[in-house]
């Protein structure tokens, strides 16, 4: 599958460029020397950049590009180099390149068109083959390759986050070293945050992500009276990995509660400042929690807030007062961003719920349940259809809570959603995070529901608090996701468990995805505590938040 994806990407970007290059081949000759100079300058810059970067990928790429540059004769190089760079990289590259090269009017057709094309193709195949060996970070890592028309743009290389490079052994080694370095300072022995190992066969498309087994908790590798990690954090990590605390809001609240206990039990060591030492103390805890279960966007924002608050503590502040201030901050944060936000969102949503509505909800979103319960208390007449999906079957919990209130509910599985949609008047969805390009990241299956609702012209409303907005940009569900325990998919019916020995079947892989992203075209409205905004206004909200802070 790796090779197929790469080559399809290659074909897309190559089409229009081939014609440009043919034109260029005719036009070269006059500008050869200028282009040669540009090429040499570019090579020098790439050499410099490759020495600075820690990742050896761009250096390999620049080496490869240097090789065709040095191997072949000057004439065919200029048309071949831009396609070699353009093929893996994003669209903006081709635009400046022809612009710089079209002024060159070619007098001599140095080699025939066919020969040039053949050389180019051979070189690209060689590059693709070597990239394929590196792993499937290649095609998605568009920002990883230098996109450089000669001399104008600096090669832009962005470092990929570690949690999406699980198949790169060097990254794993770095992570292990980082965990070693993150020992808590008071414990001088060699105990460190253990590294949780992956479990089972991973489907190749997602081999860059971690996949852990619930039966191998991280606590196996820790000593029992955990002195390295605060016991509240160990408890929290266990609750995350076993799914006892699940759901974006619940996880954030539990995290902040655990941090409150850590702060209460914290004493500043001598010759240290609270503002700096406490942040360092929290780092290994956060790594530990990340190993138990990858952090959610809301948790990330909460951690950022706490770290900022801790660093802003003035150094002359006494320890007791500082701790009190921090505990107060945490309480305020939870109150404002979660409790009051839920109230505000409920108020806005109730305006959108009219009598006689049939509302479709998916899975168990604490916010959507809260809204529906509030609306019911305000005597709106509506009924709810709860859509559920395996293996989590969270809809059952949502169903229980709604029925307990007295709301009229129907329960279907996601396979029946297109049959039930003609009855539905509105769809309310919860979100795990709202990305900066307007995409909604939520439980896997949400985008399916939004798609089908769009096909039936049913309005889709997403409810999300502003603290879940995150700066990340994602357009597909592959790049960054979470893989849950594949053994959850195994079910025992009438005494037989068919998939019990799935690991022994070499061609079988079980995939248990947790999240997916919904494009903003399918979402009609986002209800936040700031009001009702369209999906595309998320960057504005983020910008305003940053200005505030």
């Amino acid at each position, binding site marked *: 599958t790796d090779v197929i994806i790469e080559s399809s990407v290659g074909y897309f970007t190559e089409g229009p460029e081939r014609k440009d290059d043919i034109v260029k081949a005719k036009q070269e000759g006059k500008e050869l020397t200028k282009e040669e100079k540009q090429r040499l300058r570019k090579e020098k810059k790439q050499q410099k950049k490759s020495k600075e970067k820690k990742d050896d990928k761009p250096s390999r790429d620049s080496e490869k590009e240097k090789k065709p540059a040095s191997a072949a004769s000057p004439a065919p190089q200029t048309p071949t180099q831009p396609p070699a760079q353009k093929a893996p990289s994003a669209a903006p590259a081709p635009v400046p390149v022809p612009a710089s090269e079209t002024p060159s009017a070619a007098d001599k057709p140095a080699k025939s068109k066919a020969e040039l094309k053949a050389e180019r193709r051979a070189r690209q195949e060689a590059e693709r083959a070597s990239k394929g060996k590196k792993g499937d970070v290649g095609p998605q890592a568009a920002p990883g390759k230098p996109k450089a028309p000669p001399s104008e743009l600096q090669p832009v290389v962005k470092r990929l986050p570690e949690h999406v490079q699980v198949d790169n052994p060097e990254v794993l080694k770095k992570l292990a070293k980082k965990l070693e370095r993150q020992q808590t300072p008071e414990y001088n022995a060699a105990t460190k945050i253990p590294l949780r190992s992956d479990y089972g066969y991973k489907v190749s498309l997602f081999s860059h992500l971690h996949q852990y087994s619930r039966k191998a*908790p991280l*606590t*196996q590798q*820790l*000593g*029992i*009276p*955990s*002195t390295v990690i605060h*016991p509240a954090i*160990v*408890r929290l990590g*266990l*609750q995350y990995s*076993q*799914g*006892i*605390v*699940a*759901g974006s*809001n*619940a*996880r954030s*609240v*539990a995290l*902040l*509660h655990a941090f*409150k*206990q850590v702060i209460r039990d914290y004493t500043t060591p001598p010759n240290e400042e609270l503002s700096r030492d406490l942040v360092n103390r929290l780092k290994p805890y956060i790594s530990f929690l990340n190993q138990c279960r990858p952090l959610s966007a809301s948790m990330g924002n909460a951690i950022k807030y706490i770290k900022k608050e801790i660093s802003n503590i003035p150094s002359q502040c006494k320890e007791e007062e500082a701790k009190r201030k921090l505990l107060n901050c945490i309480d305020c944060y*939870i109150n404002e961003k*979660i*409790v009051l936000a839920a109230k505000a969102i409920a108020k806005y949503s109730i305006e959108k719920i009219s009598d006689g509505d049939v509302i479709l909800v998916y*899975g*168990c979103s*604490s916010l959507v349940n809260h809204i529906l319960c509030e609306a019911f208390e305000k005597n709106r007449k509506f009924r709810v259809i709860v859509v559920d999906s395996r293996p989590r079957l*969270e809809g*059952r*919990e*949502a169903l*229980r809570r709604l*029925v*307990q209130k007295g709301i009229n509910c129907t329960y279907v599985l996601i396979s029946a959603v297109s049959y039930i949609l003609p009855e539905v008047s509105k769809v309310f969805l919860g979100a795990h995070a709202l990305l900066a390009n307007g995409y909604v990241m939520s439980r896997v299956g949400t985008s399916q529901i939004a798609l089908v609702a769009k096909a039936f012209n049913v309005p889709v409303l997403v409810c999300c608090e502003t603290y879940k907005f995150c700066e990340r940009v994602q357009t597909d569900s592959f790049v960054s996701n979470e893989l849950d325990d594949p053994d959850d998919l195994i079910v025992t019916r009438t005494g037989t468990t068919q998939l019990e020995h799935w690991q022994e079947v070499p061609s079988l892989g079980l995939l248990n995805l947790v999240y997916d992203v919904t494009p903003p075209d399918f979402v009609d409205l986002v209800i936040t505590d700031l009001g009702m905004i369209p999906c595309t206004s998320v960057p504005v909200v983020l910008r305003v938040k940053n200005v505030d802070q």
Partner: protein
Amino acid sequence: MELQAVLMAAGGGSRMTDLTYNTPKAMLPVGNKPLMWYPLNLLERMGFEEVIVITTKEVQKMMSTDPKMKLDVKMKLDVVCIQEDGDMGTADALRHIQQKIKTDILVVSCDLITDVALHEVVDLFRAHNATLAMLMSKAHEFTETVPGQKGKKKTAEQRDFVGVDQSGKRLLFMANEADLEDGLSIRKSIMRKHPRMHIKTGLVDAHLYCLKKAVVDFLADNKQNPLKLCECFIISTPNSALPLLISSRDEPLLQLAQDRSCWNDHRGDMSEAYHGGKLRCYVHIMDEGPCYRVNTLAAYIEANRLAPKLFEEVPVHPSAVISERCQMGSDSYIGAMCQIADKTSIKRSTIGNSTTVKEKVKVANSIIMHGVTIEEGCNIQGSVICSNAVIGRGADLKYCLVGNGQQIEPEVFVGT
């Protein structure tokens, strides 16, 4: 600190008085190590650095002189002595040390020999914020013949009825057959909350408990509660216990997190996770792996057989002097400073420290404790010889139990 370990080493060994009338149970040799070494080793391996040991003065004295305890045990032992004659159960002992308890505790009995992965028990305690988490194991059949008993008759062990929920982790009730008169009565409230219950009888309580600190405080405040430790929570929790056992500090936040979480431990009824209950007891049941409570003679013999293999004991202690013409089986263990003479045969036996075995002695399936002298030509089978005994020349012992310091006359034929 998360957990404090407490080792109960004051027990009298009431079910094996033949062995314990002279040596306290905690210091009985099993595989040439004192019995209490095994739970201490378990705690040490798990990462504990300090243990509170509740014991008698006699045991404390023996502990300070025993070489194994001094060398092998690297943890700091905080020894608390209590009266020997007092009939102190676990609950009373915890009341006694209430001042020392600062966090949640892990209570272990000195007669537990196991290699359980303790994190299984402690994880249940942590993850579900449980009041009590305990360890139980499937009872093992004792295959060895016990001296002093005719045939393989099992002693009338009284059964424990243990009720767990569908997941097999949550403990619903526990009752010992001795306490029940007519039949087993189960409260209706439990049945309503957990309609599917598994009742197990073949389980052995390993006497390893993880308890919340509030439990110890509750015990100290309610001195008149004589019930057994785990029963007092499962069967009858007075309502006055509830406020004590619930920490009040961050309750609203925890409640908020639980409300927003989409997890429930059961399904099928309309109640929230844990049925809204605050007191939860969990049990981890070991299916496989060794787990023995050495509180009867049969268990003692079985433990001697299996414990050395578990811990990869060196068969022959380096300081033992063994002559070349001694036939030693691979299952035998010789203690320190023993002297084994020629033409002896030792099979499937454990020989304690400083024991002298003279020529032409046959020892099979036996346990010889410390300081024993066995004269020439003896034949010992299936027996237990306690410390400092002297077996006269040519004695033939089959399935016997020789007490402490006893002297067997020469040419005596004992046993079936």
